[in-house]
């Protein structure tokens, strides 16, 4: 009984928070896209609307993005005075960028996947 009371008392002295934020959907696959051949309408039809469009001197850069943020914190003695507060946060991002030339033909593909490979 004493042990249970001690565990409950200890539990009351600590506070934990965890927060996760996920913005965007899974970054699309680029199967079937061909550099130098695929056009902007074909790409948009296959991949859907991008998250970002950035104008370039030599064309445009279309970007699909998913971001995951994680923050966790631990508080000791949360009622009368906090003796210790710890918080750590991390951000991970999946991103696909497609470069089109002025004629709207696909010229380059850039991809970075962080959320899955790091167990996010």
């Amino acid at each position, binding site marked *: 009984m004493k042990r249970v009371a001690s565990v409950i008392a200890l539990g009351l002295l600590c*506070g934990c928070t965890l927060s996760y934020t996920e913005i965007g959907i899974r970054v699309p696959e680029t199967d079937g896209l061909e*550099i130098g051949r695929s056009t902007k309408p074909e790409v948009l039809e296959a991949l859907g609307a991008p998250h970002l469009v*950035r*104008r*370039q*001197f*030599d*064309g445009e*850069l279309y*970007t699909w993005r998913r*971001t995951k943020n994680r923050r966790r914190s631990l*508080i*000791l003695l*949360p*009622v*009368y*005075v*906090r*003796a*210790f*507060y*710890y*918080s*750590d*946060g*991390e*951000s*991970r*991002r999946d*991103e*696909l*960028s497609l*470069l089109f030339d002025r004629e709207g033909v696909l*010229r*380059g*593909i*850039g*991809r*970075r996947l*962080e959320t899955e490979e790091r167990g996010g």
Partner: protein
Amino acid sequence: MLRVALLLAAFLLAGCAEAIFSIDSYRSHDAYTEASLRAFMERKAGGPVTKADVLATLGPPIRVIGEDTGEVFVYRRLARDNRTIDLNPGMVKVFISLPSVPIYFDSETSGRDDTLMVFFDSEGMMQGESVNLGVGETRQSGAALVGEGVQELLR
């Protein structure tokens, strides 16, 4: 009964004060990896580099800056660490608030960036690049040491 509940709620809200010892740590996504940098350097050694080559080797940039003569692709990762020791009677909330008088306050923040910028001309040909590595080079900072130690423990 209502009075007891209100008193209890006041106690719980009082817990939202600052802590005596605080650690806060943040790591952004990786802007680039050793493998992607190596691929980029190998491609660069092979002759003129296009925007498509940079995208293929380094991946999508975090930011694109438009300049009069072309674009700049920015790759960046951030590390932020803070540790604070704050001894202050104002943090103790029992029925009445004690005056907020700092007895001892010590705070240290360490913010470091790794930044790679790749410059292009108006035709999308690479003109040069600039690198600033800070994340791994500020280990002398106490806040950075605490932050990185905690990150390692949690891995």
